[in-house]
C-alpha cells in the first residue's frame, strides 16, 4: 500500500507464499507416495518438505486474508 492507496505489500507476500506452499506440499506428497525421489537427500524420512509446505500455506493464508484488497474497511 502506498499511503492509503493500492494493494498492500503483505497481500502480495501472502499470495506468493500460498502458491509456494501449495506447490511444495503437493510435490512432496507426490514424492512420498510415488517413492520417485530422483535425488538423495539427508533425513528424507522427516518429510520436511510436506511440513514446510503446510507452514507456508498457513502463513500465506493469514496474510492473504488479512490484507485482501476487497476487504471492507
Amino acid at each position: 500500500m502506498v499511503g492509503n492507496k493500492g494493494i498492500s505489500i503483505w497481500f502480495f507476500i501472502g499470495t506468493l507464499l500460498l502458491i509456494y506452499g501449495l506447490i511444495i506440499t503437493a510435490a512432496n506428497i507426490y514424492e512420498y507416495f510415488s517413492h520417485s525421489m530422483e535425488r538423495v537427500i539427508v533425513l528424507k524420512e522427516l518429510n520436511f518438505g510436506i511440513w514446510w509446505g503446510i507452514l507456508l500455506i498457513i502463513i500465506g493464508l493469514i496474510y492473504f486474508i488479512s490484507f485482501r484488497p476487497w476487504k471492507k474497511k
Partner: protein
Amino acid sequence: MVSNLSSHLTFLFAGSSLISLGWIDSLIIVIYFCFVLGIGYYLMRFTKTGEDFFMAGRSMTAWIAGLSFVAANLGSLELMGWAASAYKYGILATHWYWIGAIPAMLFLGIVMMPFYYISKTHSVPGYLKLRFGEGASMLSAVSFGFMTVFMSGINMFSMALVMKVVLGWDINFSIWVSALTVMVYVVLGGLLAAIFNEVLQFMLIWLGALVIPIVGLIEAGGWNGMVARIQHNIAGGDYTHLWRTMGSAQDNPMGIHWTGIVFGLGLIISFAYWTTDFLVVQRVLAARNLRAAKMAPIIGAGFKMMVPFIVILPGLLGLAIIPGLVGEDVAKVTGQHSFNEVLPLMLARYAGPGLLGLGVTALIAGFMSGMAGNVSAFATVWTYDIYKPVHKKLSGSEGTDAHFVKIGRWCTIIGVFVSIGTAYLVQHFDTIMDYVQALFSFFVAPLFGTVILGMLWKRCTKAGGFWGLFAGIGSSIAMWAWVKIDPSALRIIALSEHAKDMAENMYRALWSWMICVLVTVIISYMTKPKPDSELVGLVRGCTEIPSEGDLPFFKRPIVWAAILFVVFLSLNIIFW
C-alpha cells in the same frame, strides 16, 4: 525449433553442478521473477514525482521501512560470504551481526535519525551539503557512487557463483538475468518498488534459508552435537566461542585482538556503515513520520540479531558435517569444493523437491535485494547530489521535477551496466567479505567521522568537514597501498605480528576515522563556525526534537531500543 532451444539451454547451463533442478523447483523460481517484475509494473502508477521515485513518497510504515532496512543489507555478503566466513573463522563471524550492527542500528534510530529526518534531506551527501556545503557533499557522493557499483559487482559475482555451483548455470547468464530484472523493476517503480520487493525478498530469504539450520541441527545432534563434531574435525581450534579466544590474535582463526573487534568493528565500521551508508539509510528516510523513522532501525536491529541463525549457523554446521572444504585458490587447483560454496552445499544436502527451488529463490532474492538497494541509492545520489548541482551551474536553472525523475531512471540503467562490468573484478581475495571490508574502510569510516561531528558538534565548520573527510579517505587508501607494497607493514597497522587481513581492515578503519576526526577538529578551530540560526534542524543543541511524552510506554522507540540492547548483551554473554 525445439532442438535449437535445447542446444541453447545446454550452452547456458553448461558445466558441472551439485544438483539439477526439477521442474517444480524451476517453477518456483519463475514465479518469483514474475512476482517481482509484476510488483514493479504495478507500482509504476504510484511513481510520478521525484519524491515518489527517489523517496518512495515518504509514506512507509515503521515495519516496512525496518524490514527493507535489513533486507537491503542481505545481499550476497550476508548469505554466501558470511556462511563462508563462519566456515573459515567459526562463530567469530557473528560479531558482524551483533557488536558489528546492533549498537549502531539502535544509535541511528535514537540519536541520529531525528536530524536526518527533520532536515528533510533526500540522502546522506544531501545532509552533508546542508551542514558543510558542496565540497564535502560532492566528495561523499562520488566516493559513495564508486562504492555502490563495487558492491553491486560483488552481489552479481556471488549470485553467479551460486548458480554455477548449484545449478551449473553459466556465470554470464546469471549475472545478466538478475541484473536486468532488478533494472526493470527499479526503473519502473523507483525506491518504492525496491522497498516493496525487499520486504518480499526478506520473507523468502527466511522461509527458504531456515531449512538448513533446522534440519542441520537435527542431523548434527543439536548444538552440543555440532560443537562436539567441530572439535573432533578441527582438533585444538575453538570455533564456537565469541570472546574467549580474543585475548591474543594468535589464539583465534581470524587473527585479531578483541580491541580490533570492539573499537575497529564495533565503534567505527559498524557505526559508519549503519548510520551513514546511504544504501541502508535511504530506506529509513522513506518512513512516513519521525516515530516510524526512529522505530525502523530498531525493528531492523531485532531481525538483524536473528540473521546468524540462517547465515552463521549453516557455516558452523558445514564445519561439523562436511569438513574438508578448502579456500578458493586451493579449490581451483585441486577441484575440491571451496568453503565459499558451503551454503549451497548444505542446501543441496537437505532440500527436496520445491524446497530446493525455494532455497535457490532465497539466494537469488538476497542477491537481488542487495543489488536493488545499491542501484536505487546510486540513482538518488547521482541524480540529486552530483548531476543536479552540475546541471544548475551549467544551465543556470533549477530543472524540473520530471527532468530529474527521467535522469534517475537513466542513472538506474547506467548503474546496472557499470555494476555488471565490476562483477568480474571481484576475484582477488581469499573470501568475498575481506574485499568488502577493504572498501568500507576506504570511504565509510571517515564519512562517519564527518557526519557524527557535524550532527553533534555545532563548532564544526565547513572547511573542517571537507578536509577531515578528505584526509580520512586519503589516509585509508595510503595505508591499504602501504600493506600491498610491503606486507610486513600489517603488523604496524594492526598492532600485532599475528594479524591477518581482516584485522588490517578493522584497524585501518579505526585509524582513518581518527585522522578524519583529528583533522576536522583542528581545521574547525582554525576557521569560523556558522551561526546557530543556520544550524537549526541539522545539529544537536540547535534543533528541537519533538517530545514522545504523549506516547504510551510500549510505543516509545527508546523503550524498544533498551530492550533490544539487553537482549544483545545477553546473547554475547551466552556465547562468550
